């Protein structure tokens, strides 16, 4: 395996609130390899966004606190580096696409001005004219019609899909080696979603960037990801390549996720959601965070008391954090069944 572009090790992030300390990220580690797309899946509150925002220093640090951990990017630990260096990386080597393009774009500046700013901040010698031309180029690349005119328009004059295209244009302006997309399509219509995913694929091809795709939508993972990391309650519970995760998951949560999706082709009489609620992030129950809802556990010992570590199964590329993961060997999700039939 080549060297990872990004290597997160044992990241722990807390938030101080009126009700207590929220353990948003509780020991997360994963690697990202060049050119690949890593899908990070999880429910709201699982810590998937907080993880990447902490790396870029975008968490407000009065309530938030990075307790420990390392995040190596091209040999540099982003969590220990000075603000000035981090700033040089943000928007240039690592770029981020946010969820809601309407609120993520400044309403009082034109789209062109905002894209140009991203360029000029990192390349101060570029003149306004040149930056504007480059902005037009980028808008055309992401498929914004009539880019010559649109570049001088304000965000509220764009449609939702166009705004997200503009955000993508802004993120690839400086040809980053790492692209992070945090729920890029959640705020958009389903039909627009497909278009945006296409634009993202195109952006990846253009920049050869490694991508982290954060989402709760398994459909997007299936389409975009090479590898998948599943998060639950601030932990990674399973990591593997996309086929394995979808067809032969080795963690009860992942299996539950896969089996809970409704399928049109199969003849199902009941939907099978995962019973129960995600745990409170303030008073985390001891042992495995998933055990109150886990059917594999059946109340057995290590689940209540001992926290399961993320350990490799078969090959080092497939890891699961479950005391009884071996019992799932031979289990297949309904996706695999259909693939077989």
């Amino acid at each position: 395996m080549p060297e990872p572009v990004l290597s997160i090790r044992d990241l722990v992030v807390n938030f101080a609130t009126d009700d207590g300390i929220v353990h948003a990220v509780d020991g997360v580690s994963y690697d990202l390899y060049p050119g690949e797309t890593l899908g990070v899946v999880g429910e709201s509150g699982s810590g998937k966004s907080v993880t990447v925002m902490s790396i870029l220093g975008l968490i407000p640090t009065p309530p938030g606190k990075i307790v420990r951990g390392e995040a190596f990017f091209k040999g540099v630990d982003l969590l220990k580096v000075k603000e000035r260096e981090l700033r040089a990386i943000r928007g240039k080597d690592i770029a981020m696409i946010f969820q809601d393009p309407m609120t993520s774009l400044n309403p009082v500046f034109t789209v062109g001005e905002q894209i140009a700013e991203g360029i000029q901040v990192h390349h101060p010698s570029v003149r306004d004219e040149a930056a504007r031309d480059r902005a037009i180029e980028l808008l055309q690349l992401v498929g914004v019609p009539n880019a010559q005119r649109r570049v001088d328009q304000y965000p509220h004059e764009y449609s939702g899909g166009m705004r997200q295209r503009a955000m993508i244009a802004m993120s690839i302006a400086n040809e980053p080696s790492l692209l992070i997309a945090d729920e890029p399509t959640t705020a958009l219509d389903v039909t627009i979603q497909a278009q945006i995913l296409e634009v993202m694929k195109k952006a990846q091809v253009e920049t050869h960037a490694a991508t982290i795709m954060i989402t709760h939508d398994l459909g997007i993972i299936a389409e975009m990801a090479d590898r998948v990391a599943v998060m639950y309650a601030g932990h990674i519970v399973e990591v593997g390549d996309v086929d394995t995760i979808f067809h032969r998951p080795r963690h009860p949560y992942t299996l539950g996720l896969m089996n809970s999706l409704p399928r049109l082709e199969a003849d199902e009489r009941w939907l099978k959601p995962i019973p129960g609620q995600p745990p409170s992030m303030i008073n985390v129950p001891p042992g495995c965070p998933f055990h109150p809802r886990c059917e594999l556990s059946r109340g057995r010992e290590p689940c209540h008391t001992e926290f399961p570590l993320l350990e490799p199964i078969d090959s080092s590329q497939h890891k699961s954090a479950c005391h009884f993961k071996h019992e799932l060997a031979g289990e297949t999700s309904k996706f695999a069944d259909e693939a077989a039939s």
Partner: protein
Amino acid sequence: MTNPNPSASEHLQGAPPQLDRPSPETATAAEAEELTTFHEEGLEVVARSQWQLARRRFFRHKLAVGSLIVLLLIVLVGVFAEQIAPYSFREQSPLDARMAPTFEGQHYFGTDVLGRDYFSRTVFGIRTSLYVAGVVALLSTLIGALYGAVSGYFGGWIDNLMMRFVDLVLTLPILAVLIVIAALLGNGTPIRVAIILALFYWTTLARIIRGNFLSLREKEYVEAAKASGASDMRIIFRHMLPNSMGPIVVNATLIVATAILVEATLSFLGFGVQPPQPALGKLIDDARGFMQTMPWLVLAPGVTIVVIVLCINFVGDGLRDALDPTQRRLRA
């Protein structure tokens, strides 16, 4: 991602545990029992009513609670003015004139040139101020809430017209208009001053309630009430106004504060409450000529006003935090 929220027992009626995958019909009661117990672990469910939550939030603010206590004491002073004040408002004892604050003769705030005890005068002045402020708050809340409710509930051109009127009222500088009206129509009694003030201070609440109602209108329970034949009045009073209690209470508190300040200003200028009725502003005006030699005569009533308004503002702040849970404050 599916929402795993259906309650355990409902879910278990037909759907089996995933991993064994028995068919729906064979799920046993024992399995259902097992799964129910698991779901209760790690869950944080504590039922509390809304008011209890609000009260808990309010009492977390030490400043607000402290101010509330001080305020209650002051109200008691105002109510029991006769018992607390050693002298009457106009009583003069020329032999004790021009005294600095002292324990002698119970002249805690000193006396003026005519020998009037300023502590007593302040105490009676407090009563007037609180009375006027209370009446203003009550009246303007009633007018404002009703006005805003009607405007917001009916919407359309009614709302447009009513709001334009509000804009018009607010076009002129309020203090100036108040002074003019008080001069022309006032007779120096507290109640009339209160009515005049209320005529202008209902507007903020009207705007707030109207805004609230415009959005509440769209909620399903309002539509449901309409569909089941409830009259407009019933809907407004039983369904919508209770939901707006938070802003109403907070706003009423702020109006009390403003009313105290304005009443004092009016009586200072001579257009508000006038003798023989006691008024804090008038006390200060009376003492103005002797400010250099007997500054305490100005300071005592003045600081009293500041303390009262400060306490009201702190309490109002605490109330706002308690009743408006949408503003979650993170600890520093």
